[in-house]
């Protein structure tokens, strides 16, 4: 059990390291170094940067040293919580991102809850009533869910919402609460706006999860112990729910590992279509304006959050699955 946790932890740290390297590459990729960009930015707003100042900045960021030293200096500052300044906004990156990171988490989390909430009962139903009419319908809807990229789904729903109900369904808050400080009213407003984007985001993952759940449960239902339970006269509900469903749930929990990166990715794109106040639109704008510290920080934070989420799901998995606790299973 300890070995399992340690292995997962090492993998998580490795992933975070890989993400930090990629982030650094992204920050470095645009031509010229960021002091050049910074000076251009400052001169545009009228202030003059003296040569010594530029040199001092270069020294601070280690731009005159080899790449790996630059990476080292950058990562040390990041670990201390200094992500640099956004050139476009002229404020520290953390300040610019502010609430938006939490909004991304809220939407992703809601999407995963919905994914589970829909996939579990439908998966069970499709397996128990295999080849029934409803099973075919769910399978078909599942395929459509996989085939329609979620930004397209958001676009289509937005269009019909506008056409049929004359609604503008973008955003996460109504105009009254847009700029208001946090209050219960604002939270309630958020709760009212959250379901639609969360469902759109959840659909593709749900389809895959339904198919996994159905396949797992079908395997379990063919086991002799199910026949035994039936022969002993257990009620059908108990026969299905008590053991096969529980056994089929294990791989179900482990799928969160790939579900999370998938959902976080999706949230970026649909936020742009539905103009949600997540980091998505901010990231796109930062990238287009080559505001690299801001863009890099968003990529880094999203990556780290995903890894943490996956790690937590691994712990949950361990709690659900006794085989992992006993160290018999990977």
């Amino acid at each position, binding site marked *: 059990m300890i070995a399992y946790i340690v292995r997962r932890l090492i*993998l998580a740290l*490795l*992933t975070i390291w*890989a*993400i930090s390297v*990629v*982030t650094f590459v*992204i920050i470095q*990729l*645009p*031509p010229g170094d960021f002091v050049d960009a910074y000076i251009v930015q400052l001169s545009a707003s009228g202030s003059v940067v003296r040569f010594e100042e530029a040199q001092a900045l270069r020294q601070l960021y280690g731009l005159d040293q080899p790449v790996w030293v630059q990476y080292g200096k950058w990562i040390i500052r990041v670990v201390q919580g200094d992500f640099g300044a956004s050139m476009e906004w002229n404020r520290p990156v953390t300040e610019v991102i502010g609430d938006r990171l939490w909004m991304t988490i809220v939407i992703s989390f809601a999407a995963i809850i919905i994914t589970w909430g829909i996939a579990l009962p439908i998966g069970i139903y499709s397996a128990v009533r295999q080849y029934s009419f409803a099973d075919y319908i769910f399978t078909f809807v599942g*395929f*459509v869910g*996989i*085939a*329609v*990229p979620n*930004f*397209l789904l958001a*676009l*289509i729903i*937005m*269009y019909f919402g*506008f*056409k049929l109900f004359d609604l*503008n369904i*973008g955003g996460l808050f109504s105009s009254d609460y847009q700029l208001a400080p946090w209050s219960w009213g604002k939270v309630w407003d958020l709760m009212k706006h959250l379901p639609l984007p969360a469902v759109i985001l959840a659909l593709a993952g749900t389809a895959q999860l339904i198919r996994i759940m159905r396949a797992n449960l079908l395997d379990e239902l063919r086991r002799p112990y199910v026949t035994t339970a039936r022969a002993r006269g257990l009620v059908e509900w108990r026969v299905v729910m008590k053991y096969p469903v529980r056994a089929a749930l294990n791989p179900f929990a482990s799928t969160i*590992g*790939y579900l*999370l*990166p*998938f959902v*976080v*990715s*999706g949230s*970026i*794109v649909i936020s*742009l*279509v539905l103009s949600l106040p997540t980091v998505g639109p901010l*990231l*796109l704008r930062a*990238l*287009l304006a*080559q505001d690299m510290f801001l*863009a*890099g920080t*968003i*990529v880094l934070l*999203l*990556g780290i959050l*995903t*890894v943490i989420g*996956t790690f937590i799901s691994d712990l949950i998995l361990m709690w659900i699955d006794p085989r992992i606790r006993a160290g018999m299973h990977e």
Partner: protein
Amino acid sequence: MSGAVADQAVPLVTAAEEKIAIASQLQLTWWRLRRHRLAVASGVLVILFYLVAVFADFLAITSPHATNSARSYIPPQTIHWFDEDGSFKPHVYALKGRRDMRTFKLVYAPDPSDKRYLAWFVEGYGYELFGLIATKRHLLGIDRGVPEDALFLLGTDQLGRDVWSRLMLATRTSLTIGLVGVALSLFLGVLLGGISGLYGGAIDTVIQRIIEVLRSIPTIPLWMGLAAALPNDWSVIQVYMAITVIISLIGWTELARVVRGRFLALREEDFVTAAELAGASRLRIIFRHMVPSFMSHIIAAISLALPAMIISETTLSFLGLGLRPPAISWGVLLQDAQDIQALALAPWLLVVAVPVIVVILAFNFLGDGLRDAADPYG
């Protein structure tokens, strides 16, 4: 594997059994696939789409780059199939554009007195068929007249470009970018997956950890970051290649997983041991004995990887970070339909969603059918 079947069948071999016994894995897969109607229909659909990609210019009506501000946002036209006398003569009415003085929007009214008859194989803008033969022939056009004036099957966009023609060209770009991307991923996947499965041990562990790390990173922000760094002055072709490389960097992991799994399973098979004992070289064992028997698995994995590639390209271009105009792809076209204002004004721009969804669905059904057919124990 086929050896064992043949042995048991020796006493009483019917012609059909013998056919099965000596059939190659690919043949067996094909026979099984044929029974899967949905997969076969999807396969035909996919082939049709690639035909569109090959003959995109021929199917286009007007030059996809020709802009004309006097033709901005023309709605899709209705084709009238019969003339007044009841004879079959498909035609469209010529359009009269007029500016609405209150909204300053161009509105178009069909003029029933001015009929334009449709004609096959007419001359239009020049292009090169297969990149070789210079020609001006197009499948559809207008009899005695230029289609630029009158024929807009799916309407026009803001700059007055014909949506139908742009859709044809976009299909070519989006479908081929998938192919190039998959070819790259396949190369990486087979190479690394093969090494991983064949040698095992430390190399296997390292490669598996790399795959796990790559899969746990949210891809879209990463792609966005990498794609945004492409220099602005790059040509369309350079951007195209760069985008495929970026997409393949993540896409190879699934293929590597499949290949590794097959290698691991096949390593223990009797026929591989037999070949080893007979003194076959390593390369011969891999390419003569192992690869043919999991070829069908790779084909199935490819047909599932292709739609993922297409979605990736479409998403990136939609965000404005992938292919950029003047390149035309599904994502670039969808970019015009990005916000509710554009959609309210010109809902027909959303028509691009149809081929995207259809082709991805078809690939998924086909891939699913292939995966079932490729597994002899399924």
